[in-house]
């Protein structure tokens, strides 16, 4: 496989060289289909959307906006109504732009619908609840598709192993993979990260990262809904699907800590619980986590996330270095005496939309034969947040290795509408909640 790839690679490179000097219509050397697969020029790019919620629909709009010659050809979701609403929303957004052509037979419904939709595409958008992401990413990469996928990339370490493995293969195949950790595509973060790289605050020794807010949407159980359908609709509150909010939401801030420090933590310990948000529709996740992540160089980052109404709100990242400190929301760098050294000049009007930039870069890279490989960092930051969750659920200090080798698998490999969900309510409709000191992880 490796040899074959490298051969392909050589011919692809020579192809790129040639096409840069020879007009694409005058190719002298015939090329195999596989080689062509990665080289697009101005060819129409077919797009499939896997996971048709609000975010997936938004990503589809951004993809269609990003490239002149892209067409949405297939959609897949567990639910028919999600596909219909999504398509309607996308069509309404464009109001007549001819880049949407999803035939009735190319709307695929159910747990395995993703395969057929991915088969039809050059580029796929993977935006289902994160539990399924490893399987979808695996299939997309095995079938040579370019990928945009939302964070997080898995909900369990078994899924992470799969994503890491496929990330490598995607890189070898020169597939572009963009992950929706959009701070990496946000002007302000890029600017401030450059300052860190230049040593403006020295070496980062500590940090605090926050996602403290009131929580997100809740879908109530409806009569005649199967348990599986209920969990799929109200997926935020079930770990196999969502991974808890320390992962689903707070990953953004934890990922910034990894990015700015330039490494991933070696261990974590923390505390968390379910104190306020514990209603019948709130499944099994905690409403707060507080984790201490330790890095190999001794840096320590405190990560806090809270979904409780009426409390202090803060979504931010702050770091202290050997020469100064940085506060990202304010966009400021101070020296060790607290004097302002730098301020990012922010302008609401001129700030590019990072969600759009993600797709602009993805499609430009596909067109230019470049390779964006976000999946490895996406997987490692996902694992960092999972490690944090395992630490708060267990109440134990755990290493990254512990997490990766735990064998913890929340998402079944095969699912159909007849499958029993991995978690079930008791007779009062309540789910088993992790208990620190008792829960393994």
């Amino acid at each position: 496989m490796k040899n074959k790839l490298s051969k392909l690679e050589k011919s692809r490179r020579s192809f790129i060289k040639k096409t840069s000097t020879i007009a694409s219509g005058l190719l002298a050397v015939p090329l195999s289909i596989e080689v062509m697969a990665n080289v697009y020029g101005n060819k129409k790019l077919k797009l499939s959307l896997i996971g048709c919620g609000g975010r997936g629909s938004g990503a589809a709009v951004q993809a269609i906006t990003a490239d002149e010659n892209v067409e949405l050809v297939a959609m897949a979701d567990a639910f028919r109504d999600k596909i219909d609403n999504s398509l309607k929303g996308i069509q309404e957004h464009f109001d007549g732009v001819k880049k949407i052509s999803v035939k009735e037979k190319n709307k695929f419904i159910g747990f395995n619908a993703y395969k057929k939709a991915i088969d039809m595409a050059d580029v796929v958008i993977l935006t289902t609840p994160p539990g399924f992401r490893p399987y979808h990413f695996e299939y997309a990469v095995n079938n040579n598709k370019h990928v945009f996928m939302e964070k997080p990339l898995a909900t369990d370490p078994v899924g992470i192993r799969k994503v890491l493995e496929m990330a490598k293969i995607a890189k070898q195949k020169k597939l572009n993979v963009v992950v929706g950790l959009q701070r990496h595509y946000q002007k302000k973060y890029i600017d401030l990260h450059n300052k860190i790289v230049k040593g403006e605050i020295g070496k980062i020794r500590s940090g605090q990262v926050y996602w403290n807010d009131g929580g997100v949407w809740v879908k109530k159980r409806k009569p005649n809904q199967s348990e599986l359908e209920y969990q799929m609709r109200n997926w935020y509150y079930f770990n196999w699907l969502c991974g808890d909010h320390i992962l689903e939401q707070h990953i953004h801030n934890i990922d910034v800590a990894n990015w700015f420090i330039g490494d991933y933590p070696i261990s974590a310990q923390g505390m968390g619980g379910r104190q306020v948000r514990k209603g019948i529709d709130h499944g099994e996740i905690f409403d707060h986590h507080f984790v201490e992540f330790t890095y190999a160089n001794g840096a320590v980052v405190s990560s806090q996330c809270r979904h409780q109404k009426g409390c202090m709100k803060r979504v931010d990242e702050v770091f202290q270095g050997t020469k100064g400190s940085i506060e990202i929301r304010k966009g400021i760098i101070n020296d060790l005496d607290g004097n302002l050294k730098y301020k990012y000049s922010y302008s609401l009007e001129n700030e590019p939309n990072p969600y759009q930039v993600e797709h602009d870069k993805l499609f430009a890279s596909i067109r230019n034969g470049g390779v964006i490989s976000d999946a490895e960092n996406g997987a490692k930051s996902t694992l960092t947040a999972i490690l944090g969750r395992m630490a708060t659920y267990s109440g134990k200090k755990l290493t990254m290795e512990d997490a990766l080798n735990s064998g913890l698998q929340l998402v079944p490999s095969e699912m159909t509408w007849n499958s029993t969900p991995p978690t079930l309510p008791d007779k009062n409709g309540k789910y088993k909640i992790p208990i620190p000191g008792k829960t393994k992880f």
Partner: protein
Amino acid sequence: MRSLKSISIAFLFSLNIYALQDYSQNIYGTQEKLNFIFIEGGTFLMGSPKSEKGHFGDEGPLHQVKVSPFWMSEIEITWNIYNLFVSREIDNSQVNYSKKNEINIEIDAVSSATTPYVEMSFGMGVENFPAICMTQYAAVKFCEWLSALTGKFYRLPTEAEWEYACRSGTNSLYSFGDNIEDLNQYGWSKSNSNESYHKVKQKKPNPRGLYDMHGNVSEWTLDQYIPTIYKMRKGLTVNPFEIPKKIYPKTVRGGSWMDNPSRLRSASRRPSSKKWKKRDPQIPKSLWWHTDAPFVGIRVIRPLNTPSIDQQKKYWNY
């Protein structure tokens, strides 16, 4: 006809007994209160002359407008109160049904705002800080919810009502005069806000006792934004209201912590825009939240003459 007339006169009279008084509205089920200032009806010159420093084309020509009396909230609606609407946890404290209420509607029937995924105060503060980033639809629904909760009819002001209340009898650039140097005592603009909104009621009020009419956050009105509308008005216009026919643009007033002082003038008008949802990553974009408008908020009014039930509903569904 005659009997109808006499009934309405009697009705008006009974209201007038306490009409001229300001009052404090309890937000039932909480400790929160919202003070309302009575704004006597009257006639004023709306807009600004070309000679005014900072004048924009949409502010002219100056024209005579007559406005009916109303009460206006003394402050911009704070997160303390707005979040009660978002969470809907105090709905069972709704005022009991009574014929004495201006309005009796089931609070359950009022649409609920979605919970935003991103933190909408952007770290600028919550307790006694003005609520921001709501769409005009959300602002209108907030008024409906507040009305259902309290039994009094609340709505957004029209542009004319807003400017009339802001001016409170003045014809100057600002309600405190023409000297831009004095603005620091009355409002938060780009030049003194330190890149953040501020707690309400920190600066001096306008002549009628309304706080933060100039700056802090811009305030939603009911009107469609039509830049040339003043040119179309002839003679005395009574209670003008440009009924919105499309979502954008609608008018916000008062300027904000992000604006230059000139944008905080009494006559300044600003159109809303689709761009205010630029970074909403979802499709359809939120009906309830503007991801890119951390400068827009709400101030509500209560007209002295409560409109008919049909009319009331219209004000909450434009």
